[in-house]
């Protein structure tokens, strides 16, 4: 099954995502911020990234830009999962190259559906 990376500075958030996607069979790895996420993404191939926007060290939008700059992650789906509901941030994310934008709190069934749709 596909490997999904979840990036969020809140441990409980990472656990919820891990639990939700893990129980339908995906392999989920965790990163606490954009910097760690970038490093992990380069150590191993990840099929989908789910990232928060507000994080220390490297925020979500910068992470998206950095990932899109890598050859291996040019077309990898990246979903932003965030408390930000403002159109401004959303447009920033879109122009940085994010595949989708989910507002917290997420509905576990919806998340699974979106992940399935995006991973094909």
């Amino acid at each position, binding site marked *: 099954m596909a490997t999904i990376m979840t990036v*969020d500075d*809140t441990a409980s958030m990472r*656990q*919820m995502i891990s*639990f939700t996607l893990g129980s339908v069979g995906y392999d989920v790895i965790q990163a606490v911020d954009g910097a760690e996420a970038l490093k992990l993404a380069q150590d191993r191939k990840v099929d989908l990234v789910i990232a928060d926007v507000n994080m220390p060290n490297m925020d979500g939008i910068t992470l998206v830009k950095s990932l899109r700059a890598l050859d291996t992650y040019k077309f990898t789906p990246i979903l932003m999962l965030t408390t930000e509901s403002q159109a401004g941030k959303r447009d920033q994310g879109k122009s940085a190259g994010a595949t989708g934008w989910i507002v*917290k709190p997420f*509905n576990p*069934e919806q998340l699974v559906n979106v992940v399935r749709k995006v991973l094909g």
Partner: protein
Amino acid sequence: MNLASLSNRWWMWAAIAAIGSWLWSLPSLPLVVAVGSGCTTLIVVVLLIGHGVTLQRMQQAAASYDDAGDNDELLTAAEAESEIEALLEKSNDIVPIPPVDQMLQTMEADNHRRRLEDLLRRWVDVAHRYSEAALVLRKEIHGVVHHTEQAANTISSSFQAVINKATLQAREAMELLEGTQGGATSGAPQSLTDFIRVSDERLTKMADEVVRVADLSVQMVQELDGVQTRTQAIDGFLLDVEKLADQTSLLALNADIEAARVGEFGRGFSVVAQEVRRLSQRSHEFSDRIRQHLKAVKVGLNKTYGDMRNLSAADMEHALKIKEDVIALTRSLEGKNREVAETVGRINTISREIAQDVHNVVVSLQFHDITSQKLKGMLEPMDDLRRMLFHLMQETMATGKNLLPLKEGSTMSKADEKSAGVSADAGSDDAVLRKLRAVGSSSSGPSVELF
């Protein structure tokens, strides 16, 4: 001026003389007298010096006036006027005597200024207080974020553990009740359902076997009945044969009698008649022997018949009882099977309900993340306000007026450090906060107390 100064300072010389005379007379005087005269001398000296100094000053003042006066001995009218004006101006500086209106205006301006100062002082006070309060708020917010993070993490881990265990429980139960897919093919029952089914089949088969055996015994009894009928028939035939033999014997006797009546010619006939008689006797003997055999057969048959009858009756009864028991058992096994199916259904329903609860928990557990981001978002405008207020406070106080309410001057320097940096988690805040928090903080006693 030496001579003049000497004559002017006559008081000085007088004082020195007084002291000198006292000192000269000192050795020859008793103590009390010496002290008394000493005091008197001191008073005299002080008075002399005071008088002398005052006199000197007055003379100096007079001299200066005299000097001024000496230089302008001959004044013209205009010069005199200007002189007077200058004096008046000078006198104004020394002792201003403004008109009443001016006085009132100045008083109003003073009042106004005082009110403004008061207002500024109060603003500064507010700014100062807000800084302190903001520090406390910041620390409390961080505290809340930290605590909710810990709680959320614990809840999340425990929740996942519970879910895993519930799933495991359901799986174990299902395995017990339904068994794994490949179990039934190996022949031995793997699950409760299988076991129930197989037991049912075997018991039914056993009961059927018993009934079949009972049936066979019944058949055998019927066969025996048939045999019994045949023996009775043979018995009947034997009777007929004996009757026939008897009649033949009688006939032979009659033949003998007729043969004797005939005389010599009937002798051959009477031999024949005797032979016939002997034949019929022989057939009697045979018939007897057959009859004996028949009797034995009958006895044996009766015995077998009796045994068979008992056996088959008992067998049948037994078989029927067994069959009844087996039917009852089968019914209860079917009942058990239904129970198993119901339990399986209930387990599935509960699993579905658990899935719904899991859904709710997963949505709710994201509360920590959302609330901590919202709380941290509160910090930025708070810090902005604090910085702005602090700058305002600094500028206000730089105007030179003493506007700071006389509180701990030390906290001001700390606010200074704070405003210079960005995030205020420095240890320097702790002293202030500890003081502030000590007022209304949580109790440090035991968690449960019975009175």
